[in-house]
């Protein structure tokens, strides 16, 4: 019987040692974590992403420390230090450095009775890509489009007759100016309220040239109200050239093309005031607009002017359709200059654009059928 007791006591002893062992074993807990540094694709070589996944159980190891260094001519400079609570989740931190191709080092530490010990290190040298692979299809499309434009402009120059369908809004520009002349009222032109960076503004300035030329022929005073400084300079050049090519340089008065105001709603209030006081016969609202579109359109309507509007801002098209007599929708604004000037080069470009869009439509329909069958190469490589 005593043997069993001794055996029992010994096992108790071992067990207690072992038990004692377990609660001391967290001292020997090996900190485990997944530390990954990835270079960000398709960037200039400055971006990278740090991923850190703690693999210890939260009660084993509560917090980790992460320190990220960058190497600048041999010297390690700390750029970020982080305390990570072990919530079992992966920490993903996008980061960037100033210069491309820098060597980046990430070190993970854990705390053991007051002392911080490093247990993992990863390094990476960030690199950039010369060609953005995600945008390759767009680049090829741009080159293809440019070559199509060359082909059709050459065709147009060689005298081939190019048909352009009637665009409702544009046909009425000449009658609108004509009617304004009969009523002895001025013409107002607003080339959008966006900066020169917006291509819609440039498209509108191309239309301004045709409208300006017609106004010069009809000797109708034309006021051009501008909100953006750079657009002011360009608009003055365009109107001066329009009057010149209509053979009436004397009619051009630089003060007719002026900056009405410098803020979105300051411009709307100044334009509103000018419309009500000078009572224009025709108002052109062509270009990029925001919420002030309806303010301009509704005031133009209240002074009885003929309104021809056009914008590529999808959110403002409904307001122009409701408030104006004629509205150019999206793409029609960009086709306007070719339609009005009938220059072979411009008609050629319009033709190229139509065929390019036709090509894209065919590719899309093809992709649809293939996608139904389950083959999505087109979508993956061309369309996204």
């Amino acid at each position, binding site marked *: 019987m005593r043997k069993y007791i001794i055996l029992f006591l010994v096992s108790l002893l071992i067990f207690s040692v072992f038990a004692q062992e377990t609660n001391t074993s967290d001292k020997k807990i090996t900190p485990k974590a997944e530390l990954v540094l990835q270079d960000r694709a398709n960037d200039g070589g400055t971006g990278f992403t740090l991923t850190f996944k703690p693999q210890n159980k939260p009660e084993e190891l509560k917090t980790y420390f992460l320190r990220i260094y960058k190497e600048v001519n041999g010297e390690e400079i700390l750029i970020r230090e982080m305390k990570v609570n072990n919530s079992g989740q992966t920490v993903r931190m996008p980061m960037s450095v100033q210069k491309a191709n820098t060597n980046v080092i990430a070190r993970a530490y854990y705390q053991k009775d007051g002392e911080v010990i490093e247990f993992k290190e990863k390094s990476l040298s960030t690199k950039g890509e010369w060609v953005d692979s995600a945008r390759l299809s767009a680049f090829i499309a741009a080159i293809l489009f440019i070559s199509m434009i060359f082909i059709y402009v050459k065709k147009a120059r060689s005298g081939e007759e190019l048909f352009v369908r009637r665009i409702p809004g544009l046909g009425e520009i000449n009658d609108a100016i004509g009617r304004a002349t009969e009523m002895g009222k001025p013409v107002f032109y607003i080339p959008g309220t966006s900066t020169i960076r917006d291509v819609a503004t440039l498209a509108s300035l191309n239309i301004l040239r045709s409208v300006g030329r017609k106004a010069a022929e009809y000797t109708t005073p034309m006021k051009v109200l501008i909100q953006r400084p750079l657009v002011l300079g*360009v608009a003055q050049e365009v109107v001066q050239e329009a009057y010149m090519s209509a053979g009436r340089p004397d009619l051009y008065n630089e003060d007719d093309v002026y900056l009405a105001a410098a803020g979105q*709603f300051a411009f709307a209030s100044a334009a509103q005031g000018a419309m009500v006081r000078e009572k224009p016969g025709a108002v052109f609202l062509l270009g990029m607009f925001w919420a002030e579109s309806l303010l301009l359109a509704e005031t133009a309507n209240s002074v009885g002017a003929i309104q021809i509007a056009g914008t590529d801002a999808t959110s403002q098209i409904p307001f122009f359709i409701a408030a104006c007599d004629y509205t150019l929708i999206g793409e029609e604004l960009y086709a306007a200059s070719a339609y009005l000037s009938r220059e072979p080069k411009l008609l050629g470009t319009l033709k190229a654009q139509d065929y390019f869009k036709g090509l894209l439509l065919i590719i899309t329909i093809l992709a649809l059928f293939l996608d139904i069958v389950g083959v999505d190469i087109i979508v993956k490589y061309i369309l996204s």
Partner: protein
Amino acid sequence: MKRKYPMILTFIFGMIGLFLKASPILNEKFVDYLLLWTAAISSFAVIYSTFNVVKHHVLKIQRKHRDMMYSYVTFVGILLMGVTGFVGHYLPQSNWKLLYDNLYQFVRTPLDATMFSLLAFYISSAAYRAFRAREWQATMLLIAGFIVMLGRVATGPLMIFADITNWIMLVPTTAVMRAIMIGVGLGITSTSIKIILGIETSYLGGGK
């Protein structure tokens, strides 16, 4: 001479813009240089446009235009906001800055917000005029607008309109806005290319 060189410049900078967007490394290296130039150009353009506004109102006064006295108000506005803004920027604790903040909060913001709120009135008169069952297109416009307006404020039995509104916004409106965006994307591309290749030169103005 006056058009040829600028057109060459347009082509060069157009190609720079195109290739910068195509290659991240080029973009990383050179985009700042170009943005420094456009920042300089925009800064002087602002100075020029200020002269333009002042000249416009001075001419109005010289011509004894019936609203000429209001032009003085514009000058006061420019000076007041400009001076307090500059001084306030460099002496943040001074009461210039206090005056600038008050001008911003109690002059610019109310004017801005009130002009924006005029839309509430203009939208009602525009709806009154536009939503009339003239031809079938206008009837379509009317029906869709009417349903959505009801749907947005529907309660109880009218909730059917709210569901129809959701469907209209999720299917036809999405399709139309997406198609127009695609068309506009093509328009932007073709207009940009026309400008770079010198097919469209109206922005360069008159004279040879």
